[in-house]
């Protein structure tokens, strides 16, 4: 909303931004990144979603309306900018404890101890990239800071990464800067967290876990790179809890999911990297943001027909309110992810099924009655001016969502089979799976190729 207001102000139109009470601090912080720290907001007391009609009427007429008038007719006081260090400044000198106290006090850390980013440690990371350390890979909202190679190294050191992870970190920030991903939405209230999927020979070269305990901390590359992502969101993008990060409920960062490419090759299924448009054997990262999901225990059966109903049912149930991204509001950007253990993938593939067959099955069976789809968004959620018939009639979403007036007709939860993503990882001999509920355009899947330095093998040998 503030982004819209900033566009209007820049074009010469005075604005008033309607802001619920709990979002005033976010608005104040976000306005600095927009270059308009004094952009005016009009308070809406409390939260609008839980007011009676009378309460809402009273608050808007007695509080908000007066602020709107003031916003549009009185020039807001100018706000002085806050002085900051230069990009390569040393900000604290001292012992490990002192450095950590300083970083925590200045909101640079996540609460766990960080590795002090010294010149020597940063230099070791920079040795693993051929990019200039001053190069900016993009500009990140809400703080609108430059995503420099230097800052990637600094935050990589802090997260406890090893220097040889640097090519992965650079690729991740390239992905974070990609407009299709939508990093600016990373502080939205459902509190989604990014999952990083890794593909390619680097999985083994750098020692990622991709078998039992996938998604569990305890493996240095998986864990520290996941932490790096969160630190970079904090320090460079600028997402801080109680300010710009408005997660109602968050999670600790997600550790990296590395695919089991041995199994994928054996059963003839393409890895996620190939589905994202890269060549088989490329080292890649794929990112997307998920607001929920959960595990499926014991996907039993010896044929796809026996196993997939359970998967389809769970995909539909775990992607609950997220179907808002399937409507015109989300422009069909819902991309649910299903991670299956190797034994599940192998059993399905044994029947001759490809990934595309599984996706088609999910598209046809992970469905809900139209009345339930509409009730979820129209009555329970936040989209009171919407329904499926309008969206289809206006040509904004596929016809599959309104093929009749029967409220019991079954409608899909995505626009097309290819919207489902499937990855293979986890305990090779346990028939469990994990469904991720996707956050649509607020964290759309983006993949990037990892560029290794020319003397990668020598550098890596030097580290080992």
């Amino acid at each position, binding site marked *: *909303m503030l982004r819209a207001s900033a566009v209007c102000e820049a074009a010469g139109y*005075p604005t008033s931004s309607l802001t619920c009470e709990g979002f005033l601090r976010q608005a104040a912080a976000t306005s600095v990144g927009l270059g308009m720290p004094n952009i005016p*907001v009009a308070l809406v007391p409390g939260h609008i979603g839980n007011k009676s009609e009378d309460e809402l009427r009273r608050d808007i007429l007695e509080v908000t309306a007066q602020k709107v008038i003031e916003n549009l007719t009185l020039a807001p006081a100018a706000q002085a900018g806050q002085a900051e260090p230069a990009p390569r400044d040393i900000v604290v000198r001292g012992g490990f404890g002192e450095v950590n106290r300083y970083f925590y006090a200045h909101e640079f850390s996540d609460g766990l101890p960080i590795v002090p980013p010294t010149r020597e440690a*940063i230099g070791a990371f920079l040795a693993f990239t051929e990019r200039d350390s001053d190069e900016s890979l993009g500009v990140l909202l809400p703080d609108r800071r430059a995503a420099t190679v230097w800052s990637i190294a600094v935050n990589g050191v*802090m997260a406890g990464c090893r220097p040889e992870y640097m090519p992965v970190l650079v690729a991740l920030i390239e992905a974070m800067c990609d407009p299709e991903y939508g990093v600016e939405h990373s502080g939205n209230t459902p509190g989604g967290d990014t999952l990083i999927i890794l593909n390619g020979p680097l999985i083994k070269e750098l020692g990622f876990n991709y078998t039992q305990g996938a998604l569990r901390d305890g493996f240095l590359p998986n864990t520290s790179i996941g932490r790096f992502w969160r630190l970079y969101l904090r320090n460079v993008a600028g997402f801080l809890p109680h300010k710009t990060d408005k997660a109602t409920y968050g999670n600790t960062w997600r550790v990296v999911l590395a695919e089991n490419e041995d199994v994928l090759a054996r059963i003839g299924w393409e890895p996620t990297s190939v589905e994202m448009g890269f060549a088989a054997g490329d080292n890649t990262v794929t990112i997307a943001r998920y607001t929920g999901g959960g595990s499926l225990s014991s996907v039993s059966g010896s044929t796809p027909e026996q196993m997939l109903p359970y998967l389809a049912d769970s995909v539909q149930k775990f992607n609950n309110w997220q179907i808002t991204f399937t409507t015109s509001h989300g422009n069909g950007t819902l991309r649910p992810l299903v991670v299956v253990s190797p034994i599940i993938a192998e059993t399905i593939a044994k029947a001759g099924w490809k990934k595309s067959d599984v996706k088609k099955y999910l598209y046809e069976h992970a469905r809900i009655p139209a009345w339930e789809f509409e009730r979820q968004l129209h009555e329970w959620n936040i989209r009171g001016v919407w329904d499926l018939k309008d969206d289809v009639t206006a040509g904004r979403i596929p016809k599959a969502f309104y093929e009749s007036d029967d409220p019991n007709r079954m409608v899909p939860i995505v626009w097309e089979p290819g919207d489902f993503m499937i990855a293979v990882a986890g305990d090779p001999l346990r028939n469990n799976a994990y469904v991720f509920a996707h956050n649509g355009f607020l964290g759309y899947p983006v993949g990037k190729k990892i560029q290794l330095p020319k003397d990668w093998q020598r550098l890596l040998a030097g580290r080992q």
Partner: protein
Amino acid sequence: MSRQTNDGYYEAHWPRSERQQRARPLAPRLASLQGKTVAQLWDQLFKGDVVFELLEEALKARFPDVKFVSWREFGSTHGGEEKAALAALPGRFRELGVDAVISGMAC
């Protein structure tokens, strides 16, 4: 008992980077809303339709000649097409004779 610690000594660099956005001026404010045209921008979430009706009522009571351009004219300002929607706003405002904007909802 030794009082020596092994906390080490570090010179730690700033983990942030330079902001790329310099401060920009706001648009000039209006002398009054009387006779002015106010556009409503909505992300189509959080009862904005109800809020705009109430604001119209309140503002018309104070400024009888104020006019409004409904949020329906502009589509959602938040969603999969946000960037294109925002880029189109100044042109639409010129066409519609807009003088000021109310934008919601941050909730």
